[in-house]
């Protein structure tokens, strides 16, 4: 499946079915993130249910602490 993550086309494995899976795939599941899915901002509680499909446009920002 091909999706656009942070402006880049990326090929992701079939077992990535939801936004939660996608965050695991990018090793961001332990981070605090904000996800925009096809121009809709997601509540954190929606990551589990939101399904990822071919051509989806996903933006991910994760929070860091250093300064």
């Amino acid at each position, binding site marked *: 499946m091909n999706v656009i993550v*942070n*402006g*880049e086309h990326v090929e992701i494995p079939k077992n990535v079915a939801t936004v939660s899976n996608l965050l695991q795939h990018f090793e961001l599941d*332990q*981070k*605090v993130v*904000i996800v*925009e899915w096809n121009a809709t*901002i997601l*509540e*954190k509680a929606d990551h589990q249910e939101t399904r990822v499909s071919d051509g989806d446009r996903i*933006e*991910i*920002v*994760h*929070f*860091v*602490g*250093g*300064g």
Partner: protein
Amino acid sequence: MSERYSRQELFTGIGLEGQRKIGSKHVLVIGAGALGTGSAEALVRAGVGKLTIVDRDYVEWSNLQRQQLYAESDALDRLPKAVAAKNRLSAINSDVDIMAHVMDVSVEELEQLVDDVDVVIDATDNFDVRMIINDVAQKQKVPWIYGACVGSYGVTFTILPGETPCLACLLETVPMGGMTCDTVGIISPAVQMVVSYQVTEALKILVEDYDALRKKLVSFDLWKNEHVAINVDKIKKESCLSCGKDRTYPNLDRKNQTKTAVLCGRDTVQIRPSKLMERDLEQLATVLAAQGGKVDRNPYLVSFITDDHRLVIFKDGRVLIHGTKDISEAKTLYYRYLG
């Protein structure tokens, strides 16, 4: 003198009137590490009326790669960052009223510092203090600009009380200490990029051009060539305890405050006495020297080296214990030598 800000006055976003406003405003920079030194230098050069900078640490060699206000002599002298920053900032622009405080910012300190401040720049390195900034800013209705970076990645967001979501709305849960530590290093362009965003947003606030504010959560990775900007308006929560309608400012609750903190990626524990005090450093140096170990002193702190650890004791009573991440070990050393 009139030449000094001519290029900035020519810039349409600012102009003569904007420059006058900048010169009458007060900015608080919390932290004098990489982000703090960058923001402070830019704002002082831009001619801000008053700048307050606070930091709890002192200059070390590993800071010089990216903390732009410091020189080798500051690391050699182990000058507190706030003091070294003020020295350099005053040399850059003597017209700016520069206040520097060597202190660990917690609720009480921040509530006083924020008084009469027009914008707060977050240049801290941990979420404990950011959550305190968040609630104080909401309570006193002061805009603040979150900024952070690690590796080649940076993230920033401008928080306007009453308009944008607050940091608690965005995070929901506060990231754990370990996750945010800079164990993967940092390159200075990532710092400078966050500084550019923060200072530009601050200038817009200082000239009162609120329409020009970015209003989006932004992140970038300079090495991976990524840039993301997300509109987070919808994330603002009515139920938020920091900015919602039944707010309680949970981060200002004294129960939630820590007296000890493991410093990010530094193999260091800070211990804050329950009551701040003024230590007599000269007397302390004599007492410590009598216990063996190497003692060094400057007007702001005493450094005491034992077999495996180094203790740095500040005038306000705080102690940094280097060479451990273990809070109970740090406490043992604290009470052994300073109890």
